[in-house]
């Protein structure tokens, strides 16, 4: 073992980042052999948040690229350690804020594994339904912003038209449009309103024609095709070595989807295809995500058709808040409510990892318990963080303008990267 320096002695600065960018050899001619280091972000509109890139360019060609992140770091993992298990759920909404219920699911699955809870079928079906609606929600934002980055401004408005309908669904079921906290430890928080299934079905029946509409705007558009075809290539070997997951990995020809290969929350009972592509460029990722949206519609319709009857939470009165009516009439329920709210519930010591296929790729929650009512450690592994590492491989040797297209195709959310 040969540590290069003691941990506290490294205080790097911007010079180090530039030195990183300047790793390759320079020639002696001051004009033709010189490269330029430029800064992109953190306030650049096409970096999808507060991503900062330090780019070394030779003319307009990218020589090297170093992402600088942490502008949105809020210490969510540290905050989790000071909260009761049930109080962590709203925090998880804020990680990948385009798919809050997917975050809730991943966290709930990890804690349920520690508690050894059995989740009733209806809650599992509702989780699948809302996870897939979240995928539509996230992919709509991806498509709108990705197209806007490349100059097709109209698509953004069309995508947000449909997203608004989804937002109203989320509001109807949870009371919140974005930070839903709908999926809780042990099930889901509320019974969906009576007419909600019909509303979702009406949306889903109509939605494939809307996808056709987006494709009508983009598929044969020569600017769109020329900007993204053959751009941002990554080989399947590099993609695995760099930890890429989700649609970006499947676009590189690796046929792996957690929903099918390591099913959770009853996904094994649904029929759907996993789109795979071999081209591994920005175009392939665009086509693949459009196909994924159509598959999600199928899964949602299956979930609506086969929605089981029964409870929406597990039968565990010491963990799950009681029904309000029961709480007002039954002594035990009142006691349980008081105990859960004031003291939380103890979770057996141990560690558990859950893994779900989020819209952006593999999302893992690692929860360590020391037997108390507060998690000892919560760690989130988001696909965005690893996918960002692949950005340099995808952009090296390409034009500066392609960087924008590649960032859009990675579909990163800085909330999930910085946490």
């Amino acid at each position: 073992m040969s540590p290069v320096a003691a941990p506290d002695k490294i205080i790097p600065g911007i010079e180090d980042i530039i030195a990183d960018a300047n790793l390759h050899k320079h020639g002696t001619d001051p004009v033709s052999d010189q490269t330029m280091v430029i800064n992109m972000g953190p306030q650049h509109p096409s970096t999808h948040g507060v991503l900062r890139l330090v780019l070394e360019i030779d003319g307009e060609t990218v020589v090297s690229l170093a992402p600088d992140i942490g502008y949105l770091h809020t210490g969510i993992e540290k905050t989790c350690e000071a909260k009761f298990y049930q109080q962590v759920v709203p925090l998880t909404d804020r990680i990948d804020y385009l798919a809050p219920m997917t975050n809730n699911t991943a966290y709930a699955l990890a804690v349920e594994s520690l508690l050894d809870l059995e989740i009733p079928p209806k809650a599992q079906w509702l989780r699948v339904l809302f996870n897939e609606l979240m995928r539509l929600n996230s992919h709509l934002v991806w498509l709108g912003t990705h197209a806007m980055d490349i100059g097709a401004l109209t698509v953004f408005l069309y995508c947000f038209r449909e997203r608004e309908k989804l937002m109203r669904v989320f509001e109807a079921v949870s009371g919140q449009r974005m930070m839903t906290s709908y999926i809780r430890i042990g099930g889901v928080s509320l019974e969906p309103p009576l007419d909600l299934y019909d509303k979702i079905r009406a949306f889903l029946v109509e939605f494939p024609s809307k996808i056709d509409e987006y494709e009508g705007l983009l598929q044969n558009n020569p600017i769109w095709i020329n900007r993204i075809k053959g751009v941002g290539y990554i080989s399947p070997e590099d993609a695995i070595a760099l930890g890429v997951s989700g649609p970006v990995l499947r676009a590189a020809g690796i046929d792996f989807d957690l929903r099918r290969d390591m099913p959770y929350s009853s996904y094994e009972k649904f029929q759907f295809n996993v789109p795979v592509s071999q081209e591994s460029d920005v175009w392939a990722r665009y086509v693949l995500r459009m196909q994924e949206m159509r598959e999600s519609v199928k899964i949602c319709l299956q979930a609506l058709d086969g929605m089981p009857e029964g409870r929406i939470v597990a039968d565990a009165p010491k963990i799950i808040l009681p029904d309000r009516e029961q709480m007002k009439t039954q002594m035990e329920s009142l006691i349980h409510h008081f105990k859960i709210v004031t003291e939380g519930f103890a979770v057996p010591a141990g560690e558990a990892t859950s893994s779900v296929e989020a819209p952006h790729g593999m999302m893992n929650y690692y929860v360590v318990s020391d037997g108390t009512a507060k998690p000892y450690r919560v760690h989130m592994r988001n696909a965005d963080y690893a996918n960002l590492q692949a950005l340099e491989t995808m952009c090296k040797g390409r034009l500066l303008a392609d960087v924008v297209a590649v960032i859009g195709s990675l579909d990163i959310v800085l909330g999930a990267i910085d946490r």
Partner: protein
Amino acid sequence: MDAAITGTQAIFEKFPNEPAVKALTTIATDAKHDRGELTLTVPRESIVAACQAVKQAGYNFFEDVTAVDWYPSEPRFQISYSILSHSLKRRLRLVVRLAGDDAAVDSITGIWPAANFYEREVFDLFGIHFGGHPNLRRIMMPEDWNGHPLRKDYPVEGYR
């Protein structure tokens, strides 16, 4: 739920055909199968060898590395590596335990370049050193920050 199985001998007997167990028979110092998750503990000197061995055994996809601070007990730090196999459709957790006054381990970026950001994050938030890492700098916190926020002796609120 199956009861947890602990101890290297019990694990070797229970899962004789598990490729990761076979690969780490001589290296692992502790083993656990709990809640359907297999955890193998390896000494810190052999983490690179252990990663190489499980990679050859089919665990091809590096997912995650993170740490847990067990302050004030010793060994203080637990580093958890999460590794996935696309073909076996299974996940493996490798654990390395580090003493609080000598929190350093070899980097595995040579095997999986994906570990780069993850090790930087652990370095930044826990102050654990990764020897041989190509670019060990803070990643989340400002560059001139003092202390490592995810350590248990670092307060959640108030003054440091």
